[in-house]
């Protein structure tokens, strides 16, 4: 035996430790994988040994291998073994490994519950600390449920080191087990005023994290945070609080007004840049929330912008970046104050740092106006040229398009310029954003009717030079543009000068190399062009040109008929047949142009993306109702075969078509309008969408004079610059004319008023180059204005949206007196098992100041208040704080010593003073100590549990719960949570649970899914009371 031990330890001497492993890997650079696999084999051997030190060493090495990307989950059980070692050294290794590789899917996690509970209540604070740290990384809903109570108790631990860890981990527990938020919250709040700054900081951290997701529930904490903000000197805490206020102010503008002053003071006084920056950020948030109400904060805005300018001008790139970031927030509400720093922002576009350039780009978005759009875009185009082949260039491209298209092309005065910018952008090679450019082209061509002629001409050039775009490869995303070009040329082909040429360009063999969806559009629009060509030659007898066109299509289309893409193939063969038929007719000299054109007649209107969703359901239409009666079950399907379809369907469709003629339709429409007009509840269509309906006619489109002095450009030469020049000239001309007019006016009304006309052009002075009619997107009639931004239903924070000020079901409430609202909670004390801790929260409901309060406790036979040393049994206890009027809440804690369980009676007296007069009020109430309060969650292993039951010392009783329809695990969770039990074992339909009273009485429960509870306990009176309380808990829900 002794020999074996010696041999074992000699073997161990040659085991690799972590350093050896690392060294070995570094020495085997060439065959690292092979070396590691032999190491893993060794580790597997080591894990098989009984010696815990060897196992711990192996687990430590595994943690390293995990970092290198090796899956070590196969060793999960061994990790649990190492975690449960009694030595801190090994325990720490085990928990580290677990925190690196355990997750919700790890099945051995459920074995750890009792071990973790044991560690949490360990007398050694570092055992507890290590367990908390580990748990924070792999906590699961089950662990959170089972351990919530233990962790809550640790929040009042004597060591601040444990307190701060326990407070922090509560956030993770809340996320996994939202039910625990309510009972834990009072204690969490109390920790905001913990004497230890670390604990305080942790509590602030957790509450900020909670409040960020559901700010409205935490508004009532604002005064407390305000106090902290003005008193704390810990910058870390200050930053968190100030960030939190930034989230709260949008909900409560009054808070914002209060904040401005202290924040401004901080901005002026602090030397810490991080604090300064967060202050500025929150002031901005405040200003945004106030901006609707009071415009009187220009000083604060100026201060912010000024400070930000200093940041942006700083040589430190980090400050520059953050300055720009914050600037973009101001921009949304106070664009004017940012616009004056345009020079600075344009300067940042030249910065060598990409992050900064991107931020500056974001800012530009909000800084454009009708006046400077062209100029800014020109500058950006220059950058585009410089930024060849980077993602930054793609970013530039999207930004240019964003800037131009924002709020319905609001700032574009000259659409010809915009189209030529888009055409220029198509020359960027290798961009991913071809579809973006394409959709802009489509958008502009469809919605700006006046531009169609110009757009079509440009698109025809693009199609003609398609080889430039598709140039090297198909991967090139830019060929998407051809999709738009083909469609525009086809749809608005009446504007084409030479449709024949475009048609030819669209049917080149090279087209077959384009992606399928683009080819499909080509084919379809070739047909449209064909129709246009035919119409052009309409009337000419024996038109040679028309027949040539047909022949061209017949020659070229077969290429597409062979396409592997179904869509292309289908369209091509369809159109090919059509053309062949037309050719036949042409040869017979039949007029076909009109009929072919009719195929593509009608105008397409843009439809808003949400239009379909917003079509209201007409009155009386029940979408869920059967249209036809469902076939009865008895009627088998074979009985009446095909007859149903063969006979009935044509009849239906025929009759519908014949009976609804134009007149009838018009009449019905009239009737409906009348009805709608008389119906007060009918929501009328907005005027903008009405407009689209009323004026679809072509007469309303203003005719645009295309300036022919600008020749259409050959691709390869930028031409948008010329527009810029032209625009400038045009504006000057206009200005000059205006001046002339003004002078005339002045001459007429001399001496009346003097205007300074040397000032800069104001925004309104710039008139668009041509009156463009921007068609708004169509929405269905009477669509309801609503935005339905669906929140992510999987967001874990949703479950934490709990109104914490409302009724707290877990704690017991006391009298709802008009002066004071009291909530209390009783918990067993882990440190001293003869005591229970009572946490009390007072809420001042009156509108006067509560100056002092005193407890007078009448000790009962069974329980005694723990008084300070030297105080008599009848001395009162003063509550060490004052309560301001209003909603403020505070928590207080006192310890009562207990001998036997059941009920303790206490009487309280409060001294209340309002501002001028002081009043005394004496309020009597009872604290009800349920026997559950005396139970302490204690882990129990199943074998010990079995022994306990076999011993025969326990007396049994049972209980049936009626009308419970919650999932079984919820039921268990409730019993665990409210009554401090722990689950010993769960087998399918039943679970055994255990708890222990502070006097050491055992309580065992067997809970079945049929919701019957069998209980056993060595103290019959305790047993009866526990069962009564469980019954009460479930009768409430």
């Amino acid at each position: 035996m002794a020999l074996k031990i010696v041999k074992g330890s000699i073997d161990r001497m040659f085991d690799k430790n972590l350093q050896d492993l690392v060294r070995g890997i570094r020495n085997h650079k060439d065959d690292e994988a092979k070396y590691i696999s032999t190491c893993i084999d060794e580790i597997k051997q080591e894990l098989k040994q009984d010696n815990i030190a060897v196992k711990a060493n192996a687990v430590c090495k595994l943690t390293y291998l995990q970092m290198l990307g090796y899956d070590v989950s196969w060793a999960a059980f061994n990790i649990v073994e190492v975690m449960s070692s009694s030595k801190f050294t090994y325990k720490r290794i085990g928990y580290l490994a677990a925190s690196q590789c355990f997750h919700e899917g790890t099945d051995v996690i459920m074995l750890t519950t009792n071990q973790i509970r044991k560690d949490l209540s360990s007398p050694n604070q570092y055992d507890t600390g290590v367990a908390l740290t580990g748990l924070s990384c792999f906590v699961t809903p089950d662990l959170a449920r089972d351990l919530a109570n233990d962790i809550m108790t640790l929040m009042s631990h004597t060591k601040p080191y444990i307190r701060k860890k326990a407070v922090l981990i509560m956030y993770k527990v809340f996320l996994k087990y939202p039910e625990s938020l309510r009972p834990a919250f009072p204690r969490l709040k109390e920790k905001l005023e913990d004497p230890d700054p670390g604990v305080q900081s942790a509590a602030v951290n957790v509450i900020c994290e909670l409040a960020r997701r559901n700010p409205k529930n935490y508004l009532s904490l604002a005064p407390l945070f305000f106090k902290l903000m003005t008193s704390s000197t810990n910058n870390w805490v200050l930053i968190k609080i100030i960030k939190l206020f930034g989230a709260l102010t949008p909900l409560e503008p009054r808070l914002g007004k209060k904040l401005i002053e202290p924040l401004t003071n901080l901005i002026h006084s602090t030397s810490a840049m991080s604090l300064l920056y967060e202050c500025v950020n929150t002031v901005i948030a405040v200003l945004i929330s106030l901006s609707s109400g009071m415009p009187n904060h220009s000083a604060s805005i100026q201060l912010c912008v000024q400070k930000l300018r200093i940041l942006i001008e700083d040589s430190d790139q980090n400050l520059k970046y953050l300055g720009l970031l914050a600037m973009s927030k101001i921009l949304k509400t106070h664009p004017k104050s940012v616009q004056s720093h345009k020079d600075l922002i344009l300067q940042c576009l030249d910065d060598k740092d990409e992050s900064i350039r991107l931020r500056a780009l974001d800012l530009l978005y909000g800084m454009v106006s009708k006046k400077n759009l062209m100029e800014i875009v020109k500058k950006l185009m220059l950058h585009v040229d410089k930024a060849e082949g980077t993602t930054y260039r793609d970013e530039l491209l999207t930004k240019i398009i964003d800037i131009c298209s924002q709020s319905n092309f609001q700032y574009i005065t000259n659409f010809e310029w915009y189209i030529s910018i888009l055409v220029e952008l198509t020359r960027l090679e290798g961009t991913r954003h071809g579809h973006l450019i394409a959709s802009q082209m489509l958008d502009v061509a469809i919605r700006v009717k006046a531009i169609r002629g110009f757009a079509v001409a440009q698109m025809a050039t693009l199609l003609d030079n398609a080889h430039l775009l598709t140039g090297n490869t198909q991967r090139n995303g830019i060929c998407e543009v051809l999709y738009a070009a083909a469609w525009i040329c086809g749809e608005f082909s009446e504007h084409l000068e030479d449709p024949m040429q475009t048609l030819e360009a669209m049917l080149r063999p090279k087209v077959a190399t384009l992606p399928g969806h683009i080819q499909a559009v080509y084919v379809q629009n070739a047909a449209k062009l064909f129709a246009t060509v035919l119409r052009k030659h309409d009337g000419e007898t024996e038109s040679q040109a028309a027949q040539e066109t047909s022949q061209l299509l017949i020659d070229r289309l077969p290429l597409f008929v062979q396409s592997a893409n179904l869509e292309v193939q289908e369209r091509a063969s369809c159109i090919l047949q059509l053309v062949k038929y037309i050719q036949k007719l042409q040869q017979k000299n039949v007029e076909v142009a009109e009929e072919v054109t009719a195929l593509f007649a009608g105008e397409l209107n843009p439809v808003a993306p949400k239009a379909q969703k917003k079509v209201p359901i007409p009155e009386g239409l029940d979408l869920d109702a059967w249209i036809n009666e469902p076939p009865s079950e008895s009627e088998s399907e074979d009985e009446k075969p095909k007859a149903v379809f063969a006979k009935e369907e044509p009849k239906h469709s025929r009759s519908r078509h014949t009976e609804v003629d134009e007149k009838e339709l018009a009449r019905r429409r009239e009737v409906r309008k009348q009805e709608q007009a008389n119906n007060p509840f009918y929501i009328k269509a907005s005027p903008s969408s009405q407009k689209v309906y009323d004026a679809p006619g072509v007469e309303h489109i203003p005719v645009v004079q295309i300036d022919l002095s600008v020749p259409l450009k050959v691709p390869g030469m930028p031409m948008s610059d010329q527009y810029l020049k032209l625009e400038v000239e045009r504006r000057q001309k206009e200005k000059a004319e205006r001046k002339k007019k003004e002078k005339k006016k002045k001459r007429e009304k001399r001496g009346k008023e003097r205007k300074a006309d040397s000032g800069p052009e104001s925004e309104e002075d710039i008139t668009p180059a041509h009156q463009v009619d921007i068609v708004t997107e169509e929405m269905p009639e009477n669509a309801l204005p609503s935005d339905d931004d669906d929140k992510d239903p999987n967001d874990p924070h949703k479950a934490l949206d709990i109104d914490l000020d409302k009724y707290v079901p877990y704690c017991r409430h006391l009298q709802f007196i008009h002066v004071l609202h009291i909530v209390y909670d009783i918990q067993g004390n882990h440190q001293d098992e003869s005591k229970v801790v009572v946490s009390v929260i007072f809420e001042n409901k009156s509108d006067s100041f509560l100056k002092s309060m005193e407890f007078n406790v009448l000790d009962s036979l069974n329980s005694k208040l723990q008084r300070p040393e030297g105080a008599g049994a009848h001395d009162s206890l003063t509550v060490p704080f004052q309560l301001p009027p209003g909603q403020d809440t505070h928590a207080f804690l006192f310890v009562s010593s207990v001998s036997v369980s059941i009920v303790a009676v206490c009487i309280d007296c409060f001294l209340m003073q309002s501002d001028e007069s002081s009043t005394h009020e004496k309020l009597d109430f009872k604290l009800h100590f349920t026997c559950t309060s005396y139970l302490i969650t204690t882990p129990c292993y199943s074998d010990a549990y079995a022994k306990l039951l076999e011993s025969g010392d326990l007396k049994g009783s049972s209980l049936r719960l009626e009308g419970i329809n919650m999932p079984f695990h919820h039921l268990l969770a409730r019993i665990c949570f409210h009554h401090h039990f722990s689950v010993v074992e769960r087998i399918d339909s039943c679970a055994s649970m255990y708890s222990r009273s502070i006097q050491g009485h055992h309580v065992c429960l067997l809970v079945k899914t049929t919701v019957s509870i069998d209980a056993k306990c060595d103290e019959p009176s305790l047993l009866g009371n526990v069962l009564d309380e469980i019954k009460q808990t479930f009768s409430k829900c």
Partner: protein
Amino acid sequence: MIKAILIFNNHGKPRLIRFYQYFAEDMQQQIIRETFHLVSKRDDNVCNFLEGGSLIGGSDYKLIYRHYATLYFVFCVDSSESELGILDLIQVFVETLDKCFENVCELDLIFHMDKVHYILQEVVMGGMVLETNMNEIVAQVELQNRMEKSEGGLSTAPARAVSAVKNMNLPEIPRNINIGDINIKVPSLSPF
């Protein structure tokens, strides 16, 4: 919240990884590679914030990093964290390492990954900042190390002797990869 902390060297070799959200091992490696790719191509005199990184996070997340000689320290955080605050935290962490290892260099991190983890655990817990006071962190780490020592540590004395023997015939270990000037000027919070 901090979503991940990554330490890797100038060649992208991980020295410590700590994810506060579960990712499978291969995904973790991908994230390291992507992050390294993003961070390593940046000059030393550009800002320390980085948006993007498609694998981890999303629009709400930022990479905040610092580059010391041969090592990158990268924190992936969401918008609830103060950017400059996290930069300072990295500095605090590195200074703590410097104190605990006495003139820390990359080799310390390579051979004592576990110890670095234990130090980090005193700074950040479960993705939330636990302690920012360096003295407090160092004190707690030392107390725990003392406890480990009193238990005899993981490798007992004979094993250490063996390890010395094992060391002898190894090629020379480069010892000159000092992290260098650690007190890089930070626009910082006044001491916590």
